[in-house]
């Protein structure tokens, strides 16, 4: 910041009363809320206010005069001014049209234009408000009731329909900003973010799950528990199932738009015992001598 004495236009010998008077004179002219159309007012006002924060305080002024502190860091923290909220494209309860009411009374084209714009504003619908809501993968399949805490205070109850996908937007009618006149309130638009679940992937209405099975379950078949987004089911693994075999659980996927449900696809993955079992090694060594086969076919 430049020299605060120069900013306020006063001599270094100025009295406290002179400083205050110089500040008030400038600030009244430069305050952003008293200059709604002047974009540069905010910067200028900040400088004047910063200079006054320094020189208007006898203690700080003494330290500045003795060279103990300089003018940096004297700026006021940034905040939004009233004019930012009263900007022309927003409807608000403080708007007052009495400043041009007489212009609207005429029967010329200008008066008609003004009347029309006034009607448009008087019955303006409230703004739509945008929010983001993260939900679990399971909740996206089964649906859920969530409560959203709003940044401006208050809460909003949101019903998550079953089968919703990541990025989908829910519109809550009338839950946005209040409107003016007969305009009615805007809507709340909630973008739903589905948090990933390391077990499941979703493609369309089908949900895929990779299910580890033991060697004996693969060779001999058996009944295994299969986790689902909500709960679990028991499924038969047929004899001689390989890694990569996909079993289909009909109607256990995500709800379809317009009725019905997708499938859950269970992709099997044969997992050998850990640590390796010497007995199994000895058996396979003896067994494979007689029954050698090449699963890679002839190409490799």
């Amino acid at each position, binding site marked *: 910041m430049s020299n605060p004495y120069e900013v306020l236009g006063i001599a270094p010998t100025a009295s406290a009363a002179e400083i205050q008077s110089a500040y008030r004179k400038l600030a009244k002219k430069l305050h952003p809320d008293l200059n709604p159309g002047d974009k540069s007012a905010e910067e200028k006002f900040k400088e004047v206010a910063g200079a006054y924060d320094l020189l208007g305080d006898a203690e700080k002024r003494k330290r500045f005069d003795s060279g103990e502190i300089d003018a940096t860091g004297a700026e006021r923290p940034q905040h939004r001014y009233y004019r930012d909220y009263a900007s022309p494209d927003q409807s608000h309860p403080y708007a007052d049209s009495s400043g041009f009411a007489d212009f609207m009374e005429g029967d010329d084209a200008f008066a008609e234009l003004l009347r029309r714009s006034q009607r448009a*504003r008087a019955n303006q619908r409230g703004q739509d408000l945008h929010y983001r809501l993260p939900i679990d993968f399971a909740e996206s399949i089964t649906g859920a009731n969530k409560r959203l805490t709003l940044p*401006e205070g208050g809460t909003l109850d949101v019903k998550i329909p079953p089968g919703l996908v990541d990025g989908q937007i829910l519109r809550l009618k009338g839950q946005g900003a209040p409107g003016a006149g007969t305009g009615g309130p805007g809507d709340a638009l909630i973008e739903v973010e589905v948090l990933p679940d390391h077990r499941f992937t979703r493609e369309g209405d089908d949900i895929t799950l990779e299910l580890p099975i033991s060697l004996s379950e693969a060779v001999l078949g058996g009944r295994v528990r299969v986790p689902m987004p909500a709960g679990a089911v028991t499924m038969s693994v047929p004899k001689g199932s390989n890694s990569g075999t996909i079993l289909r659980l009909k109607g256990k996927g995500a709800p379809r738009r317009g009725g019905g449900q997708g499938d859950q696809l269970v992709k099997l993955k044969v997992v050998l015992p850990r640590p390796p079992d010497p007995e199994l090694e000895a058996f396979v060594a003896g067994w494979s001598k007689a029954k050698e086969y090449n699963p890679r076919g002839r190409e490799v």
Partner: protein
Amino acid sequence: MDKQEFLTHSGVQVQMLEFWLEQRWLIPEQAAAGTRFSAMDIARARLIGDLKTGFGVNDEGVDMILHLLDQLHGLRSALAQLRKDMGENSSPSAQ
């Protein structure tokens, strides 16, 4: 935000707020759950604070300034709407 949150946020004293509400310098929303203050109300309260303590304006002066400011913003809104209407009605003809 409710009244308590507003007082904490704005640093306004409770008696002062009562007076400002009485003067209708602030018009918070009246919801079913009680009085709700917006970020705009906070900014307006800050402006009133600047006028009174920063510039030494008395209550009559504040009342007058707010009234004129509201008219100025009303005019700015009307101008902006006019500009929008004119933009819609007189789109440049395609060459």
